[in-house]
């Protein structure tokens, strides 16, 4: 009886485990099936047609996604590394611990609320939707990810290394800048890439910041489209051709995000510095 119970329990665990990843295969299968037939050079390199007309592409959304990621990374990577160093230096003090919890809280804020904040701070001040405000919202989402990955990477660097550097007469700030940071480079890079993967799929904060636009646009003061936002508008539209194109966008977006994650794994493996 005892052994029977044990067997049943193990069986249940295996069954539940397998069921829980079935949706993943289902989603991937459908995205591949529906997306592959949509994606071609014309789809990637042309602009959308007016609503209801068939054809057209998603060039505006691809450019928009990359521009938004660029804006967000440009602010959050330097600031995030700086704040990560702060958490590392102050980790034994009360203020450092509180700030670490605050970063967790910041990361836990729903992205739609981040969107509201970006709307109030930037869209309301400027009076119109803009790519910059969208990039700013994504910056607030990326920031805690960069901070945490910086702090966690620095934590893993042995103190011997710092002591050795100090004993050579190198000042402490210089040691952090020239010895510790380069050693943690691979860990930080992979964390940042995972973070970029995450913001490239964010839709909610862009609804009322970047807003979306059917035109090709490189001006950060004007509204801009992005892949996830386009998937949302196309899915909720009544047009069959737009539904079809939404699957193409989904495939493209998944491929971008997965390759970012794969690159980050490769970086960790290849550049890993063993202590």
């Amino acid at each position, binding site marked *: 009886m005892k052994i029977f119970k044990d067997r049943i329990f*193990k069986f249940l665990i295996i069954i539940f485990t397998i069921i829980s990843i079935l949706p993943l295969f289902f*989603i991937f299968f459908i*995205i591949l099936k529906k997306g592959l037939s949509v994606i071609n050079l014309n789809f990637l390199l042309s602009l959308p047609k007016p609503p209801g007309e068939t054809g057209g592409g998603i060039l505006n959304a691809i450019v928009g996604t990359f521009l938004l990621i660029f804006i967000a990374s440009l602010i959050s990577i330097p600031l995030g590394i700086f704040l990560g160093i702060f958490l590392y230096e102050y980790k034994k003090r009360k203020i450092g611990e509180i700030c670490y919890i605050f970063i967790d809280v910041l990361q836990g804020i729903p992205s739609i609320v981040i969107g509201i904040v970006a709307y109030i701070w930037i869209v309301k001040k400027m009076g119109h939707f803009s790519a910059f405000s969208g990039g700013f919202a994504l910056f607030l989402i990326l920031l805690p990810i960069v901070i945490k990955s910086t702090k966690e990477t620095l934590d893993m660097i042995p103190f011997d290394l710092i002591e050795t550097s100090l004993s050579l007469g190198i000042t402490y700030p210089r040691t952090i800048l020239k010895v510790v940071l380069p050693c943690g480079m691979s860990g930080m890079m992979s964390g940042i890439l995972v973070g970029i993967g995450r913001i490239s799929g964010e839709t909610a904060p862009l609804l009322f910041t970047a807003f979306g636009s059917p035109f090709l646009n490189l001006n950060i003061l004007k509204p801009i489209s992005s892949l996830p936002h386009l998937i949302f508008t196309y899915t909720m539209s009544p047009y069959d051709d737009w539904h079809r194109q939404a699957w193409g966008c989904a495939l493209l977006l998944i491929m971008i995000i997965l390759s970012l994650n794969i690159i980050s794994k490769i970086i960790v493996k290849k550049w890993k510095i063993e202590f």
Partner: protein
Amino acid sequence: MINTEKVYKKIIGIGGVIIIGLLLSIFITLFLNSLPTIKKFGFKFLINKTWDPVFENFGALPFIIGTILTSIISLIISVPFSLSLSLFIGEYYRDTFISKVFETFIEIIAVIPSVIFGLWGLFYLAPIIRSLQLKFSLPPTGVSIFTASLILSIMIIPYATSIGKEVIKLVPIDLKEAAFSFGATRYEVVKKIIFPYARSGIFAGFLLSFGRAIGETMAVTMVIGNSNFLTFNILKSGNTIASIIANEFTEAVETLHLTSLIELGLILFLITFIINFFAHFFVIKRKIIEI
């Protein structure tokens, strides 16, 4: 001579001001911008069940109920799956190739954007729900609170699993071995040793995935049906706090409408703040047991 180390510490110390300032200013911004609604409706905002932009009568109850329903149902559905996954990866098949494979799959689920879950849910999950709705002679829209909960349950599995498997791995091997030496089966070890030991960590994982479910926007907005009326029937359309904001924020022209939506955002912010704070507390408690 300037003491470079002191200057460095001072400069780095600014980081603390930035972090605390950022979080405080987010809170203050949300609070100040929802003041008109807070002044007009006060606490009644939370228990008023009408949401009428035309007559400027705003109450958050339908959305609070919608949020509670979706997140609790999705949590209940996801618990057996994320627990099984945690045990599978952290105990039964620990450090084997197959558990690495499942870990990777779970990581992939975590990186799929919410909007793609919504797309899939709308075209493939909704038709299944539609037949269910027909059985109960409800309007067969396919979109409902239950559809949203199902999608959410898939989306939050990785959060509970990632913490669950780590705390299960942390259970000391000598405790388990001692139990095995008394002739305990694995099931008994899981029940009597692993669960009590890893309890607070597992709980923190569920708390975090609950927080995710509350704030999740896009997938929910796409499959919940966006109805602003209070309902407890999970096969009917509804709205969550996040989805009403996503739906109406760009359309809100009247000040009171906009500030009401911002107050909903403030509520969401406070709920997730509390949840994340407590999740931290539980994980910290676990670390103390470890020592």
